[in-house]
């Protein structure tokens, strides 16, 4: 009985969560006149599939998709690798001032992005990276504070017996990291991968600032590029947003098991 109630409540909650998605799907299939109609209708009449075609006609949507994928995949690889390395060093190695280093790294999370945008812009300009994908990838290869924190907590939770046993077998610190600890941290790595992918995928401010050529746009910038000043083109923007959701949905479904496990165990220190 209690289980049934739980299922009913969870299903009701899920349905409520679905409402904005369904509304967006409906809006993406409306004409402008239907889009602004009051009261709004749930089922468009006629269904305007053309909105999706129009998005492809107006923008190189496929190119945006490729750019976003390239950035997100390289960001995931870079962040997972470097954050794991830094997190491992902070958790398992005797470094002088490691607590201070961690505090400093986490402290950078307190800085709003807008504060660092101009210094970063100047840095990337001097590197000749403006209007390339590099400013959106390279920072992820220097480890991120959230990644460092997540991986440090994970490595702290792994019993010391494993590395002691590996040490007796002659493993060096790199081998302990690569062969013993990293495989045990798979759920956290998957979580970090999903976090990084979604953060990179939906970023708007940085791509808007750094990318000026349409052929370099990412999906969110491409979606927003459809937004008109006087006639909103909101139905087109919504159609483009629906299409841009799909890859993220696929990533989440593939890594859902790890994602849930990883977020649940991130705060546990063994």
């Amino acid at each position, binding site marked *: 009985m209690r289980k049934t109630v739980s299922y009913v409540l969870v299903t009701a909650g899920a349905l409520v969560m679905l409402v904005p998605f369904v509304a967006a799907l409906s809006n993406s299939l409306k004409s402008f*006149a239907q889009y602004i109609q*009051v009261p709004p209708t749930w089922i468009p009449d006629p269904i305007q599939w053309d909105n999706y075609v129009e998005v492809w006609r107006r923008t190189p949507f496929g190119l945006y998709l490729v750019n976003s994928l390239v950035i997100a995949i390289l960001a995931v690889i870079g962040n997972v690798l470097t954050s794991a390395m830094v997190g491992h060093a902070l958790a398992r190695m005797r470094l002088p001032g490691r607590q201070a280093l961690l505090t400093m790294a986490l402290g950078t999370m307190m800085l709003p992005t807008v504060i660092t945008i101009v210094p970063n812009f100047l840095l990337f300009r001097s590197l000749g990276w*403006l209007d390339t994908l590099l400013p959106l990838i390279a920072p992820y290869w220097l480890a991120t504070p959230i990644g460092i924190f997540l991986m440090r907590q994970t490595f702290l939770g792994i019993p010391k017996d494993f590395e002691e046993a590996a040490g007796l077998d002659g493993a060096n610190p790199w081998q302990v990291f690569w062969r013993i600890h990293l495989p045990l941290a798979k759920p956290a790595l998957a979580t970090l991968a999903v976090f990084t992918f979604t953060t990179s995928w939906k970023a708007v401010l940085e791509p808007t600032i750094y990318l000026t050529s349409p052929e370099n746009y990412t999906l969110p910038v491409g979606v927003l590029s459809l937004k008109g000043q006087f006639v909103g083109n909101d139905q087109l923007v919504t159609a483009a947003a629906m299409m841009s959701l799909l890859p993220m949905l696929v990533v989440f479904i593939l890594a859902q098991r790890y994602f849930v496990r990883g977020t649940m165990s991130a705060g546990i220190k063994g």
Partner: protein
Amino acid sequence: MRVRMLAAAAVAVLTMAGTAACGGSADDSGAVTLKLGFYAAAGDPADTTMRELVKEFTAANPTIKVELDVAPYVKFFERLRTQIAGGQAPQVWLSDGVLVQEFAARGALADLTDRVKTVNADDYSGIELNRDAKGRIYGFPQGAQTPVLFYNKKLFADAKVAEPTADWTYDDLAAAAKKLTKDTNGDGKPDTYGFRTYSPGFTESWWPIIKAYGGDIVTDDNRKVVVDSPQSKAALDWMLGTMGKDGFAPDFATTEGLGKGVVHTLFATGRVAMSYGIYARTLPATSAGVDFGVAPLPKGPSGRGNVAIVNSWVVNKKASAAQADAAWKWITFFSGEGPQRKWAELGEAIPINKKVASTALPADRHAFLESLDAATDLGANAVWSEYTEALAKRVNEALSGATPVDTALTSGQKEAQEVIDRFYAGQTQ
């Protein structure tokens, strides 16, 4: 060895990047590259037309190569501010009229005063609206916006109410609006309102109404806020009445909740019969299939309170002499009859070329031209965004009924003045 090779590669990359970042002067052949920025949605008619015009321009000026920097309005200015800080802004860009002085005061714009003297100012609208306190001009008009009274012809006919005329006063507007307000489903709440009074975009709301009632917002070269006056109070009281006791306008919460970009759908969907709107509002109304007309703003105790925003081309102060010349060439090209006529076809802005404006606009849209001729500027100064935000916050509190009107005007004036004083304190410009 490997480290040395990496260092050498890094130096080479940085040198190449540095070299690429410089340049801009004309080369030996006289060719010059011009980065041109403008705001438009991807694939929109404005985007397409601007690109076509750039093609025409470069075909006529083969020594000028134009690189485009385009983004939708909000994103364009977000990026531009960073580009200016980083010394990477386009050499010529389209600026919202109210932002020209902001960029100029921060040293980003070239003074165009002498160049403007080379054209016949009588041929163009809006040049004077761009002149700053010291008589300098930093932007050349590209297109103009000014609010007029939009009305829904079908709703007027259905209610058997005579359409607005140039002689209308605020009393006439109120009388008609009351007749046009209808509760068709009998739920005690109007389904159609006579007039949309409040808008989060004050150009089409309290700014012209305050001026029509004899109040003003800023004076003394737009550096002194004077909104706290009995006339302003009378204007805001009238507005409150329309949304309250008279009940012929949607209330503050409804209109504020829609947001700046969506509030105009009230007119486009026939939920209000009349609304103040700039020229660009013809686009959503036309897209939604509304049969509408436009009339001059009604007369208040002190006139109509016409205001205008003149979106303008500006030239980067850091542009080389050759680029600045090329930029001016582009500006004069765009202001010419052919390009202006092409731009007018979009229906997005009033052409600034007077000859084109008088012929390209249909006769029943000439209220825009009369309004533009009579318009004052929208209080532009170096901190326009900030001081109008401070003021609008207090005015909105009054219009929502949260604060008494006189209290809101007093605090709004004080806070807006503080913003202006903070910027200009110690400024010699």
